[in-house]
Every structure is written in C-alpha cells, then in structure tokens.
C-alpha cells in the first residue's frame, strides 16, 4: 500500500521545519505557508529578498528560509524600494499586518504602489493589532471592541474601516491588487492564486503587486479559532469583499468575481 501512495501535501522546502510562535489557529501560519509554496513552485528562493515588518509576523524571517531584512514599523514598502532599486534583479517580498501597513505605514504603501515598484506585498488583515495586545486597527470593524475602543469602534469617533485593496488598486503603479481570505479551503486556494499573480506582476516587470488576506486573530478577538473563522465569513467578508480590484495582466473584474 505504501508503494501505492504519494505524499500530496507536505511542508514547502523554503519553510523552516520548526514550530512557530503563533497562537493556536492564527492564520499568519497559513499565509506563511502559501508564500513558501509559491517561492518553491516559482523557484524564487535563491533570488528572494524578504522585507519583514513589525507585528506578530516579525519572525517571518525565522520561518522563511530566504535573505531578509527587518524594516521599522510600517516602513517595509520604503525598505523594499531601497532593496529593489539597488538590486532590480532580485525578487522582493514584503509581508505586513494591518496596523503596520494601513496605519503608520499608509504613506509608504501608497507611494510604493504609486511608483509602481516591482515588489510584491502580502498584507494580512486581522482587524486588530495582534502583537501589542489587541488595540484598534484601521481595519477594525464598526462595533468591534478592542482594548483601545472598549465601547466598540464607531464611525462617528474612529471612522470607517479602510479597504486597502481597493485604495491600492486606484494607484497608477499598481499592476495587481486583490483581496482573499484564509477562512476556508476554497478561499485559501483563491488566496494562493492571487498571491501568485502578485508575484508574477513582479517577475514579469509589470508593476506593483498587492494581496490583502483576511485572517483571524483568535487571541485578541477572544474567540476560539473555529469561531474566529466563522467571524471572517460572517462579518469581515461582507465589509471587505473578496475580489480582484486591479489586474494589469487581465481585464478588470469587480468584487465577487473571485469566489466568496
């Protein structure tokens, strides 16, 4: 029987074979694995330079076996610009959380996209500051309670959650911008396809590639991982529609054309 079976799912080569520091059910792990799978499949490992950001995923560099540099909080897109402009022959990846990218790093991500830097950005939106203990993020949903909006985020006082994939899609240098989720097998598969496109627009020199991944933070949501996953479907996706918002490699699609 052993001879008749084939290993169809295993750890990607470029993903270090060590346990992660993430909380149980935290989907940074899924995002890491997808990135690693693509790096393997696209044979990018030997030319990748990864720019990590400050958030729970700062230790990405311990997991992804590629050259890496740690950027200050929010500045990964600027650091990636420095990397890519000095080594245009390399594959440059950034990985950022929602506090990092959409709050403190707003100017850097917008200008990086607008310049059309040939870099690929993985943006993990878990509607909260994970690392620092669950404060409000720019993507925190209306009504969501966090440690710094204990009464729940309100439109009146804190404003609406920012939809980054749509904002980035508007900028001249963006070749690809999409939003996917990591809550179901189907969505994870779509997420990987979107990430692949975001990688390809770089390898093909088309421009800036951006993927927003809706993910859970069970710890700071104070939900068990399965319930947290349900919240993604029930609350996040309705506000953050999945879809491709810009694709220079294909005619534009609206939300909902990538399966929900």
């Amino acid at each position, binding site marked *: 029987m052993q001879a008749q079976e084939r290993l169809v799912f295993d750890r990607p080569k470029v993903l270090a074979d060590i346990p992660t520091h993430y909380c149980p059910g935290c989907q940074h792990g899924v995002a890491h694995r997808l990135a690693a799978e693509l790096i393997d499949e696209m044979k990018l490992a030997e030319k990748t*330079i990864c720019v990590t950001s400050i958030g729970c995923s700062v230790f990405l*560099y311990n997991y992804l*076996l590629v050259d*890496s540099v740690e*950027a200050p909080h929010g*500045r990964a897109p600027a650091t990636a610009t*420095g990397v890519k402009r000095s*080594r245009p022959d390399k594959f440059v990846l950034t990985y950022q959380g929602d506090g990092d990218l959409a709050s403190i790093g707003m100017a*850097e991500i917008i200008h990086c996209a607008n310049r059309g830097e040939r870099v690929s950005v993985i943006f993990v939106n878990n509607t909260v500051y994970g690392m620092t203990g669950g404060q409000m993020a720019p993507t925190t949903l209306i009504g969501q309670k966090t440690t710094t909006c204990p009464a729940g985020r309100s439109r009146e006082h804190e404003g609406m959650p920012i939809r980054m994939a749509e904002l980035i899609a508007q900028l001249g240098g963006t070749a690809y911008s999409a939003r996917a989720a990591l809550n179901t097998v189907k969505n994870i598969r779509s997420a990987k396809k979107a990430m692949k496109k975001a990688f390809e627009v770089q390898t093909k020199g088309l421009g800036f590639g951006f993927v927003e991944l809706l993910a859970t933070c069970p710890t700071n949501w104070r939900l068990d991982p399965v319930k947290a996953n349900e919240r993604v479907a029930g609350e996040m996706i309705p506000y953050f529609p999945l879809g491709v918002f810009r694709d220079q490699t294909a005619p534009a699609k609206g939300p909902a054309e990538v399966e929900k």
Partner: protein
Amino acid sequence: MTRKSPEKIFIKGNEAIARGAIAAGCKCFFGYPITPQNDIPEYMSQALVEAGGEFVQAESEVASANMLLGAGACGIRAMTSSSSPGISLMQEAISYMAGSEIPAVIVNMNRGGPGLGDIGPSQGDYFQSTRGGGHGDYRTLVLAPASCQEAYDLIIKAFDLAFKYRNPVLILGDAILGNMKEAVSPWKPAPVDPAEAADWRLEGAKGRGPRLHKSLYLHEGELAGQNKRLQEKYLAMQAETDFELYRTEDADLVVCAYGSIARIAKSAVRKLRKEGLKVGLFRPVNLYPFPSGPLAELAGQGKRFLTIEHNLGQMVEDVRLSVRGLADSEQFSVYPGNLPLPDDFEEPIKKALAGK
C-alpha cells in the same frame, strides 16, 4: 587611492558632496527636497542616473531613510541628504540601521532651528548628530567638513567608513558649506571592490543559508550581547578621529570650533595673532568619535580653551569632558539666526585669553 588630481573645478559644497559621492561609488540616492541642500538631489537626479545609478525622490525623509536601510542591507553604497527637520524624521530608521549594522551615508546641511527655524546656517544639530537623536545607545560616525574640498574628500571617506564599520555615517555641514563655492580637485578614489560586503549583503540565499539583518533581540541576554558588540565597535572607531591644529604650539588659548565656524574662527585667530596674541585653533574633523585624546594633550600642556559654536552650547560639553581634570573650556555662542562674523569672535577670544 589616487588623490588630488590637478584639474580644479569651482563648485558649491553641495555639489562637491554629490560629485564626491558618485566618485565614491554611490549607486543609490534617496531623498526629499529641503533647503539648503536641494542642489544635492538635483545634481544626483541627473548625474547619478547618467552614471547608471538610481535616484528616487522619496515621499518623505522617513521613507528616504528606510529606503537607505534597504539598499544598505544589500551592501550597496547608498546615501541620502537632508537638513535639520528632515534629519529629525530619520531618527528611528538611523537607530534601526545602527542596531542592525547596516552601512549608510547621511548628509545633514544643518539649518537654523528649532522647528521650522530658518534656512540659514546653524550648528544646532550637534547633539542630535553625536549623541544619537534616536532611541537606544547607538552612535554614528560624524564628519564635519569645513571647505568644499573637504566636503568632497569626506563624503568619499564616509562611504569607506560606513562599510568598514557597517554603521551609518553622518556628514554634518551647514548652509554656508552647502552654498559656498570653492575650487575643488575632484580626485577619483579606487573603484569599489566588487567583493565589498560579499560576506553579509542580501542577494538571495544561493549556495548558502539565508542571511538576516535585524535589530530585534528577544532571547535572554541577546540584546545585551548585541549592545556589547556595538560598544566594542564604537571603541574601535576611536581610531578614526581626525582634527586640525592651527598655531596651537605656543598658544595660551585654544579656540575649539568645527565646520564653517572653524573657518571663521580661524580668520579671527589669524587676525589676533597679527596683534601678537597667543591663540590657536583646534578643529575636530570627526565630531564622533570626538578627538578627546589630542585635546587632553593640549590641556596637559597647560593651555586654556574657548569653544565657539553656532548654537547655544553643545560641542563645549565634549571639549569639557575631553579636558576634564586638566582644564575647562569657556563657551561662546552665535545664536542660530545670526550670521557668524570673524569680528564677533575677537572680543570673546580676547576675554578668554585674559582669563576673564
């Protein structure tokens, strides 16, 4: 290094810096406009690109400094330039570069402060430059040219030092240096060794394990270890101190000043010498590490000191610390916003000489 070609060109300090950087093998410039250093990015946007390098006008000084961090992590000679408010915005990134041991060259054409201040010359950023305006204990090498030729020479040295120590290096000038034209001999240093940084630069983990540049150290004792290593590096940097002495041998009073102010002080010293007064000048070229040893030596010879600065009194602390136990230093300030003039210095020098 082939130094001092005979052909001189007549250029601004800003342009000397830009040309020197290109000569030094600078491949990337990241910057944001601010007076009085705009000639540097403007020159680079043309000449660096023609030389095959990359010029990026960043969205801000925060971004400039973080682009620099990225290029430095790849072992590429890169620089930024700015002026006081812009340099303040770079402090976090400079601390990161120092903490993750990434080389970079940063030019500050100091203007009047605090706040928006003015666009005239000032030395108000001495503390920020030498004590690390950012968080943590890091240090940057700080070089303070006093002429256009020295601006050219020191930017070349800055790149070498940045890579030698894997540390940011600051060039501290001011609006006088940046805008003044002088004859400069644009000598060409030896080309950059292609193997520079080969053992640490990021370029894809091909045929080797991955490399990482970071400043986060969470394991017990890890950050302490890094701080210890950094401290050792700062000690090693002491070898780089550079300074100029002018007529100090028989001087009773040594005037301490740097950069443009040192030139102006020199005019005053020269004039007073003609009047027969025994004064000399000590000009640190490196502000960090500060040339304490040579100053202490002068103090040991029984000389007295007067520090003249274009600020409210900053370098005077380094002078006092250098000569402590042997002597002290008087202090004379030109307020930023006023232009320093040699005549203004004569009175305080005479007073200090008279032992007040």
